[in-house]
């Protein structure tokens, strides 16, 4: 499998992806082989079903949202370059290099987009409630979840519109080490 994947990935493509995302060629090849192994239909792109075939992801409470985040608006397939551009957000931040896709703001933007299902750049009470439903599960009463959601919005909301905008979201997390929390050590 490893040999086949490196055959399929041309050098100029690697260079281009490296330029765009900051991954090393080794990491790109490694991720490409993962990409092809997820690609059951051998068509060079992944569908939602391809992702959800990963057993752990299927039981992840946020599985659907995570998969959704890989697809551009309206698209139902993702190619390797798009796949890599999403993953690049999770590269650890290096102080010495310039960080385009993996800056703190981009990491936060990614998380925010997962909340914001209708793309209006605001997280409403219902959007937050939907996420809480997924994470907390069924054993908890609806009223309690609603009051948790309301309290969360009240805490972050500064302009009184009962929603969390991206700026308010960043403000609420300013003491969180997002750089650490949303980074993965990619294997070489």
């Amino acid at each position, binding site marked *: 499998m490893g040999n086949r994947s490196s055959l399929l990935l041309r050098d100029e493509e690697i260079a281009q992806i490296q330029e765009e995302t900051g991954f090393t060629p080794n990491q790109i090849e490694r991720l490409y082989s*993962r990409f092809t192994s997820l690609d059951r239909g051998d068509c060079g792109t992944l569908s939602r079903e391809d992702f959800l075939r990963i057993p752990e992801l299927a039981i*992840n409470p946020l599985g659907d949202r995570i998969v959704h985040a890989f697809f551009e608006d309206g698209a139902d397939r993702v190619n390797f370059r798009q796949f890599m551009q999403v993953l690049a957000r999770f590269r650890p931040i290096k102080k010495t290099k310039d960080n385009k896709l993996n800056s703190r703001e981009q990491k936060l933007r990614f998380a925010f987009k997962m909340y914001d299902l209708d793309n209006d750049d605001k997280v409403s009470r219902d959007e937050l409630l939907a996420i*809480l439903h997924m994470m907390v599960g069924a054993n908890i009463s609806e009223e309690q979840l609603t009051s948790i959601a309301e309290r*969360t919005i009240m805490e972050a909301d500064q302009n009184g519109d009962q929603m969390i905008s991206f700026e308010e979201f960043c403000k*609420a997390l300013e003491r*969180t080490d997002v750089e650490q*929390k949303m*980074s993965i050590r990619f*294997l070489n």
Partner: protein
Amino acid sequence: TTTRPPIRRYTIASVEFERVETPFLIGLWIFCASLAKIGFHMAPSLSKMFPESCLLIAVGVAIGILLFLTDKLHVSPLTPDTFFLYMLPPIILDAGYFMPNRLFFDHLGTILWYAVVGTIFNTLTIGASLWAVGQTGLFGCDTPLLDMFLFSALISAVDPVAVLAVFEEIHVNEILYIVVFGESLLNDAVTVVLYHMFESYTEMGPSNILATDLLAGFASFFVVALGGTVIGIIWGFATGLVTRFTHQVRVIEPIFIFVMAYLCYLNAEIFHLSGIMAITFCGITMKNYVEANISHKSHTTVKYAMKMLSSSSETVIFMFLGVATVNKNHDWNTWFVILTIFFCSVFRSIGVIVLTALVNPFRLYKLDRVEKFVMSYGGLRGAVAFALVLLINPTHVKLQPMFVTTTIAVIYFTVFFQGITIKPLVKILNVKRAEKRKPTMNERIHERFMDHTMAGIEDILGHHGNHHVRDKFKRFDNKFIRPYLLRDYKGAEPKILETFSKLTMKDAMELMKRNASNV
């Protein structure tokens, strides 16, 4: 006829000290230590300059000199048994129970790496170097290799009590703190094994050691470490299970936590396993389940009782170290003392540099130069080393008195010199400082959200890191453990609910306060 004993008249008052001597003296010691502690806080300039542990040792020395001059009774209150059985467990339980679990397990690999490999490295290098110098005749006494290794085994372990005492005050960033502190807790397994191993080797005599004995030593490490951990986890679960049924008798809830943790420690010590590791993991395990079961008031009691017990033991330990310094049996050997301190510092730094270079490629957060420096500088030695050196049998190891003196010297050097200078150094080097606070609702939810996201990304990558493992454990916990150990099982995200109820409680309290002042 029998002669009747002379009639003793009824006395109005009498003195009988012997009957209460032991508990009275214990009470007096604790009283003195606590008084000393109040004293330091009333002199802010003093406690700003010196860590509390230094001041306590100083007070101990003063008391020791007083006792020595009055020649009253030859007190050596710090015996190995009182230390290991009564004074150490509260401190370690406190450390384990209030351990930031998340942080600890995220860095467990690094912590174990330093604790296991680092301690073995230090023991072997310090022992070998002292022996090599001894061959030149510099020490003016015979220095058998095995005796040197026995000594280096006890001197090379970083002490959890001293590290806690000093690091609590300086507030370095949490990763640095957990690495140094975790190392000091987990290296106990290595220390126990190396100590017992070299102890029995010295008894056997060097000529009788077979290769199987070395292999047995290696195997016993796994038994001691894993055995201690398993015992701790079992007792931790048992405590969770017991507290499930205490809702009718709320007043005894705290006692279960203390007694069962203590039994766990003793249980591990019975088998010569690592008691420190057992009680650490017992604390870590039980907290998850106990906190959900016991009442709010019991929880407050547990928290304050534990803090009180650990801080008073810590106080007493440092004071006793001071008192124990003053005695007649010292055997001062200048070169041996100087070289031990020198080797301890040098090999600690070399070990940290080499081990960090090896571990950094596997870490998301790289340990930088400043942190390496604080880690090697924060390797404080303390009462564990002292208690272990007292345990050496002088009939087998002729150098024991010299070892005792040297151990005290090393402890003084690390606690005084390193302890006093570390605070300004942390400031000069600009080490990132910690800020402790309760999470807000947003932080709690969004951080959990990020965890799930990262676990999902790891699964997409097919790369099984921390998030993946944690996710697996959480799922297992929620399905098979929590429903059985918790009385009131509330679904998958207890932390979110906990934060919510804490915050609403706080709001309510503030509201009440405000209204009360209005009336």
